[in-house]
C-alpha cells in the first residue's frame, strides 16, 4: 500500500481508532505517527474533543420538569383513550 502522510492518516483516523482497518494499513499509520509530531498533536486533540464538548454540555433537567412532563403525558394518554 501507499505510504501514509498526515492527510491520508487523518482521513483514516476514526477507522483506525475503532479497529476497522486491515493490519497493513494500521501498521503504516502507526509507522507514520511514530515519526510525526504534528499527527501526534493532532490525534491528542482529536481524542480530547468529545470530552470537552461533553463536559461543557452536561445539562441537568430542571427539578420541576418531571411533574409538568407527567401531567402533559397523562393528558395526552387520556385524550388518546377517549
Amino acid at each position, binding site marked *: 500500500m501507499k505510504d501514509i502522510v498526515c492527510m491520508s492518516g487523518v482521513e483514516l483516523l476514526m477507522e483506525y481508532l475503532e479497529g476497522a482497518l486491515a493490519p497493513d494499513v494500521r501498521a503504516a499509520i502507526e509507522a507514520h505517527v511514530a515519526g510525526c509530531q*504534528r499527527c501526534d498533536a*493532532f490525534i491528542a486533540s482529536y481524542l480530547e474533543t468529545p470530552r*470537552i464538548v*461533553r463536559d*461543557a454540555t452536561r445539562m*441537568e*433537567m430542571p427539578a420541576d*420538569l418531571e411533574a409538568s412532563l407527567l401531567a402533559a403525558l397523562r393528558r395526552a394518554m387520556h385524550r388518546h383513550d377517549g
Partner: protein
Amino acid sequence: MTVRAAESSDEALAALAATGDEAAFETLVLRYQHRVFRLACRLASETDAPDIMQDAFVQVYRHISAFRGGARFSTWLYRIVTNAGLMHRRARARRPAESLDELLPRFDADGRLEDTPDALRAASRVDELLDRQVLAKKAQAAIEGLPDLYREAFVLRDLEELSTADVAQVLGVEPATVRQRVHRARLMVREYLGALAGDRP
C-alpha cells in the same frame, strides 16, 4: 403489576405499556427522562428540550405497540427523540450563528498538516483557557453549527457515548457511515475549539 416496575427490563415494561399499562409507561418515562432531556438539549437547545421531550414521549406512548422486542427499547427511544429534535429544528428554521461546514484541517501540497504541533494541540487546552459558561455556550454553538447528519452522529456517539453499532441502529445506517459522520463532525469541532483556544494569531 405483578412484577415490580423498578426491577423490570425496559422491554418488559414496553410490552406492558403496549397493553395499556400506564404505570409501566410512566416507569419508562422516569427511567429515561434525564437522558432524553440531555439529548434534546444537545440536539436542539435547552429552551426546546421540554417540548421535544414531551413530543417524543407522546410518540412513544402512541406507537408502543409497534415497538418490536427484537430491538432494544433505548435504541427505539433514541431514534424517536432524534427525529423529534430534527422536527423542532426545522420548525424553527433557525440558521446557526456559525456554520462549521468549512472547518477542516489544512494540509500542504505533500499532504502534511500545515499547523505546528503546538497549534494542533491547542484544541485540547480550550477548557483550561475559557470560562466555564463561555465554553458551555461555545460548545452548544459548535454542535448547532454542524450539518444535521453530522450533528446527530456526533451527539449520539461522542456526547451520549452510545456505541457505533447502537448509533447505526438509531440512525438506520451502516456502522461505516456512522464512523464517517462522527469523524467529519469531530474534525470540524476540533478546528472550532482550536480557533477558540487561539491556535492561530
